[in-house]
C-alpha cells in the first residue's frame, strides 16, 4: 500500500469537490426534493403506521439515495479521467492497482459522507428526536455504505470507456438500485421477483441498518427486514468483493 499515493488521490478529489460548489448544491437538492415534495405528497396517501409517518419512514432511504448518487458519481469520475487521459498518469506510476482503488473509494466515501451528514442534519424537520448515539451510529453506517457503493462504482467505471455511457448507468443501474432498496416502500411488500432483486442490492442492507437505529421499536411494515448483523456482514463482504474486483479489472489490459 502506497500511503502517499492514496493520500494524493483523495486530496485531488476533495480539492475538486470543494472548487465545484454547484456540484454540492445539486447533490444536496435532489434528496431534499424527494424528502419534502415526493415524501410530503405520498404521506397524504399513506397512513402513519406503528406511529411512524411516511416522511420519517423514507428518511433512511433518502440518506441511502444521497450516498448512492454521490458515491457512484464520484467513482465514475474515473471514466472522465480515462476520457481526458489523466488516468494514464496514474496507471504508469509505480503504484499498486489496489492503492488506486482504495484511494478512489475513500474519495467517494468522504464526498458522500459529507453530503449525507448534511441531509442527516434535517432530522428534526421531519420530526425525529435522536440522541447522540443514534446520530453517530447513522453516520457510521453512512460511512460504511458509502465505501461499499463507491467501490461498486469503481467496478462499474472499469467497464465503461467513455462518458456517453453515463445515461446508461443512470437509467439502468442507479435508478433501479434506488427503487429496489426499500427506500420508498418496504421490500417485503414487493412482488417476488422484485424482492429477490432487492435482496441482491447492497444499498438495501445499508438502508435497513439505518432503520434499526432510527426506528428501534417499529412494528410491521415499518420494521427492518434483516438483522443488523446480516446487514453488517453483507456490507462488509460486498465492499471487499468490489475492491478486489475493481483491483483486478484495473490490471494491465491485454
Amino acid at each position, binding site marked *: 500500500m*502506497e500511503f*502517499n*499515493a492514496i*493520500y*494524493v488521490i483523495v*486530496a*485531488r478529489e476533495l*480539492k*475538486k469537490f470543494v*472548487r465545484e460548489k454547484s456540484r454540492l448544491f445539486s447533490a444536496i437538492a435532489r434528496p431534499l426534493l424527494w424528502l419534502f415534495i415526493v415524501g410530503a405528497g405520498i404521506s397524504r396517501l399513506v397512513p402513519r403506521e406503528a406511529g411512524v409517518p411516511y416522511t420519517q419512514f423514507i428518511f433512511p432511504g433518502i440518506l441511502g439515495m444521497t450516498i448512492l448518487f454521490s458515491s457512484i458519481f464520484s467513482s465514475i469520475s474515473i471514466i472522465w479521467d480515462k476520457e*481526458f*487521459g*489523466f*488516468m*494514464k*498518469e*496514474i*496507471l*504508469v*506510476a*509505480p*503504484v*499498486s492497482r489496489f492503492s488506486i482503488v482504495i484511494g478512489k473509494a475513500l474519495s467517494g466515501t468522504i464526498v458522500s459522507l459529507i453530503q449525507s451528514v448534511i441531509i442527516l442534519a434535517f432530522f428534526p424537520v421531519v420530526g425525529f428526536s435522536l440522541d447522540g448515539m443514534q446520530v453517530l451510529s447513522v453516520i457510521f453506517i453512512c460511512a460504511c455504505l458509502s465505501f461499499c457503493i463507491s467501490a461498486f462504482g469503481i467496478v462499474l467505471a472499469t467497464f465503461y*470507456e467513455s462518458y456517453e455511457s453515463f445515461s446508461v448507468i443512470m437509467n439502468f443501474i442507479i435508478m433501479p438500485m434506488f427503487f429496489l432498496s426499500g427506500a420508498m416502500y418496504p421490500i417485503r411488500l414487493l412482488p417476488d421477483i422484485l424482492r429477490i432483486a432487492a435482496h441482491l442490492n447492497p444499498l438495501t442492507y445499508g438502508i435497513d441498518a439505518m432503520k434499526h437505529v432510527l426506528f428501534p421499536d417499529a412494528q410491521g411494515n415499518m420494521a427492518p427486514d434483516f438483522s443488523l448483523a446480516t446487514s453488517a456482514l453483507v456490507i462488509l463482504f460486498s465492499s471487499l468483493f468490489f475492491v478486489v474486483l475493481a483491483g483486478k479489472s484495473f490490471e*494491465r*489490459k*491485454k
Partner: protein
Amino acid sequence: MPIIKVQRLVKKFANITAVNDVSFEVEEGSIFGFLGPNGAGKTTTINILCTLLSPTSGSASIAGHDCMNEPSEVRKAIGIVFQDTTLDKDLTAQENLMFHAYLYNVGKDIRKKRVEEVLRFIDLYERKDDLVKKFSGGMKRRLEVARGLIHRPKILFLDEPTLGLDPQSRANLWEFISELPRKHNVTIFMTTHYMEEAEVCSRIAIIDNGKIIALDTPSELKKAIGGDVVYIKTTDNLSTKQELERLFKLGVTEKEGELSMTCPMGDTCIPEMIRTIGDKVLSIRIQRPTLNDVFLNLTGKAIRDEEATGGDNVKESVRAYRRRH
C-alpha cells in the same frame, strides 16, 4: 551498457499485428527516435515498454528490469509524456506537479523544491497557481515534460511530443528537449512522424507496418540514400522517366506529377539531364537528402501519405479491440 533492450517484440490485436518482431537497444544518455507514420506501431511499442500493455511475445527490459515481470521497478525508472495530454485541467500547474511527486513517492523534504525547480526550468513559475485549462498547447506540453522529470527518471518517453503545436512552440520544445540529456542526465526515447524533428536524435529506428526497416544515426541513414535527390517536372513524365532511367541507370519515381531520382552527385547530374530532355523540362530542383527521402527510399511512399488512411484504420481497429476485451 544499453539502458533499453528490446528483443523480438510482437504485439497482435485480434487480426492486426501492430508490432512485428522488433528488436533494438538504446544507449544511456542518448536521444533515440522512433520514426514512422501513424499506425506504424510506435505508440504500441511505448505502451509495452512503459508496462501498460503486455506483448504477445518477445522481451523488453529497462534499466535492467524486465517490463513484464518487474513493472513496478520499470515504472520507477521512467517518465512518460503521452501523445494526448494527461494533465488534470481543473488543477493548477503546481497541483499537477505535486500530485505526481506524491504518486512517485518523492521524499517529503524535497517535494516542494523539485516542483519549484522544474517550474522554473520550464519558465512557468510565475503561473504555477493558474489552472491548467488556461494554458496554451505549448505550455501544457512543457509542463508535462517537466512533470515527467520530477521523480528523476533514467529514461523519458516522449510520444509525439509536438503533435498539435504551432511551429514556434515546436521549435522551442525541441530546443528544450535536446538539452535534457545533458542537464538532467536522462535518456530520451521519442516517437515522431515529423522527419525534421528526428534530426536531433543520436539514433533513429524507422518503423513501418510494425517492423523496423532501418536503424542508424541520421547522417548514416541519409548517406545510405546514395546522394542528392533531383526533382523534375516535365511536360511528359512518362517518356522522360524512361529516358532518364535509360541514361542514368537509376530508379526514377513519380509522385504527384513530379519525377524524383537519387543521384550520387546532383550538381553534375542536372546539366546532363538538361542536355537530354531539355525541351520537356518545366522545373528542376535539387534537395540534399532528408529523413523524408530516407523513408521514401525505404518504403516507396512519403511518410505523410499514411496519415488519414492506413494509420487511422489500424488505430480504430485497436480501439475497437480494446473495447471488446
